[in-house]
């Protein structure tokens, strides 16, 4: 395959990584957690939904129900973390989501089996196909969603009262609480929205990228790498990172002799990036 074509094909996965990279970044900034269960709630929701929704109402009916299930799951997880790990450090809160990921992964295998799930695709085929490039509808949908979510989050944080309160909670939770801000409600709101979008994300890509529970991990890792490119703070860089990782992985399929390297791309991106951004010593606490 010619390299440019391979690269453009990789953007399909890249868009997914960008979307989940954005969600992870939002959770990190507003929820003070690296949410290892971010993809898992979406996957679980969609897998459950395709069993609840009649075949003729799929895929959109299933995606919608999947989003709702993912939202409920996400709120539950958020409740556990906000309620009992409210003051815990980020690493402890994140470790809890690792345990939840393990639980959801195993539960999904139990309930839905380990074989590929019969999910239908809402977006099929390319939007642009020439001899040189092939851009799928899915790549456009996921990337546009990622951009919309990022821009929406940015605008909301900057221009709305809820956004100001969210920033207050994220900066100084205790102070926000003393001002009478409903910290728990706001945090659960963040969990709800990210869960909803995770359900959408998995729903649209499920038939090619999330056919079994392994996707809870296989989508999460490159997405986390994308979020790391933005240091879990910058949404725009998370999108660039996600697309970049997807494109790089796609590009490598054009070189079969080094195909093993493809699986290591997210890690290499993280490593190179961290070595660059963390040249200077940083400390665990400010003082």
């Amino acid at each position, binding site marked *: 395959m010619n390299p440019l074509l391979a690269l453009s094909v990789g953007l399909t996965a890249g868009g997914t990584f960008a979307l989940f990279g954005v969600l992870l970044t939002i959770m990190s900034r507003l929820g003070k957690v690296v949410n290892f269960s971010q993809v898992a709630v979406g996957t679980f929701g969609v897998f459950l939904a395709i069993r609840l929704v009649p075949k003729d109402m799929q895929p959109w009916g299933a995606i919608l129900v999947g989003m709702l299930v993912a939202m409920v799951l996400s709120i539950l997880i958020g409740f556990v973390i906000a309620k009992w790990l409210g003051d815990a450090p980020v*690493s402890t809160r994140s470790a809890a989501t690792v345990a939840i990921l*393990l639980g959801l992964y195993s539960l999904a295998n139990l309930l839905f089996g380990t074989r590929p799930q019969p999910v239908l695709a809402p977006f099929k085929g390319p939007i642009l196909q020439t001899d040189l490039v092939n851009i799928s509808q899915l790549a456009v949908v996921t990337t546009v969603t990622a951009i919309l979510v990022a821009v929406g989050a940015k605008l909301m944080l900057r221009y709305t009262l809820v956004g100001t309160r969210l920033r207050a909670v994220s900066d100084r939770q205790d102070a926000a609480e003393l001002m009478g801000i409903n910290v728990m409600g706001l945090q659960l709101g963040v969990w709800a929205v990210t869960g909803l979008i995770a359900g959408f994300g998995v729903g649209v890509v499920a038939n090619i990228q999330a056919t079994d529970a392994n996707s809870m991990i296989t989508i999460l*890792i490159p997405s986390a790498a994308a979020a790391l490119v933005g240091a879990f703070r910058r949404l725009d860089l998370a999108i660039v990172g996600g697309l970049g990782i997807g494109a790089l992985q796609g590009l490598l399929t054009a070189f079969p002799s080094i195909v093993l390297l493809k699986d290591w791309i997210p890690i290499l991106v993280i490593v190179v990036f961290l070595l660059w951004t963390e040249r200077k010593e940083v400390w665990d*606490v400010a*003082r």
Partner: protein
Amino acid sequence: MSHANTATRSHQLRFGIVVVAALAVAVAVTFGLPSYVVFISTTVLVTMVSLMGLGVVTGSAGMIALSQLTFAAVGAWVMEYLMFLTPLGSVFGGFSFIVCLLLGAVVAAVLGLIVGLPALRLRGVNLAVITLGVAAAADLTLQKIYFPDAWLNQRIDRPFGMDRSEFGDRMYFLFTAIVVVIIAAAVYQVGRGKLGGMWRFVAFSERGTAAAGTKVRNAKLSAFGVSAFIGGLAGGLTVGQIGQVSYVSFQTAASLGLYVLCIVVGAHFIDMAFFGAILFVFIPEILKQFGIPLEWANVVFGVLGVQALTSNSTLGDQIRSGLRKLKRHGATAQPVSAHLEEVDLERTSAIFTTTGQPLLEVKNVTVRFGELRALDDVSLTVYDREVVGLIGPNGAGKSTMIDTITGFLTDYEGTITLDGKPMEGLAPDRRAHEGIRRTFQQDRVPSSMTVGQYMRLMAHGKSTPAEIDEILSYFGCPPAHTPLRVVDVGSRRIVEVAANVASKPVVLLLDEPAAGLSHDEHIVFGNQLKKIPQKYGISVLLIEHDLDLVRSVCSKLVVLNFGGVLASGNQAEVLRDPEVLKAYMGEKVGE
């Protein structure tokens, strides 16, 4: 014989008894139980090895590592490769297995170091992302390249001619048990030693670790390397047990399960690693007997993991605290004030005069935080064997000054020299080695150690055990065997001062050391402080709000206000300066 020696000896005796007992149990299991149980028990021991490795990085050093079985896979893969495809597989006869096992573990450790390197300066969460990524990538790679046993369709030879008969399985169990006892003993001893202290210190506070002269990177890297090495051993032992392995034995989800189990039981305790291994192996076995799908085990582990994290305690912690309550052992340590009668209470001893040799010289230091000048052209000198007070209202820049001198703040203009040697470009741990030590306003004394362990770790071998005992008794600290978790916060700060004295620095920077002490303790501490230069040959830069204390111990004062030097010089003159009185004590002075 000192108390410490007696305690060490009885401890070593107990340690020896446990090792011998463990081996005796292993022999009994080898010959006394049905072969199926013996085979499963080997699995338990191999899992225990994995958990012990994870306990080092997760339990001791406080990092999240999600790739323990990847290290096992690497150990297994390399071991098979060496056994099948190189002369190493036969050249050492019955010992070839052991040689290849160790080499496989070394390669796993090297991989661990490579993986850990970029994450070293980062918080645990980034390490979690990286290790999870490595686990998943290795998983995919192994699915494509297979293990060498699959290329050749062979099984590797067990050590010392053990075959794969029922008797061979029993012998291999015994071999595994001996290896596990060796690993457990080593992990236990290392955990109690300097390296283990470093790991626990870095888990508690990176800044505290660096200020004690230990490189944070080395502490984390060594934990990760040791953990990966032990993980590699577990992989090699698995190969010896089942003969042929595949990626299925080392999947990412199983690594996640091990990690979660590690935080449930607290696998940095050896007994808990054993207990965790039993859970990890037997819960699925029991489920299998009842025809329940095995995935339920992971669901249960997930729930237990969340429970352990939300309650902020592992099963091992709970069992140990329960045992302590039963024994009513060392309920609380006496605060420093309880030792008051042992030290003299006189208030009038003279302030020691300096020899006049400048040691710490800070010249024209400016620190900017954006537009704000936190320090503005500040100069100060601490001469040999004097106590200089650094005072000023809140926000004047005192702690920024200490951070700058000790190397935690690197972006500054001006120069800092110690005994004529420039400190620019030296990290905090290097400056600590050169002889600049500090204490913190916050509690940076790890509660997981005893007073003695902490003192030894901080002293870096600069003080003998007898000297440490002497310093502890001089400061009226609890005895060396006291666990720090039962020492109150005020007394811990005095222990922190004592530990830094034991490191025999050139200059000791004390950041509000007397906060949290009662009035009487203040007086005693002031007296002890005053004599530090004379008694231990150490100069002191003291940040303190309590002017009584400052007045009684400092020969010279530097007053900071809004980042600049408001006044400096002889104590009495500075304290009479009307500008100082106004800035420092507001309008209330003179009322």
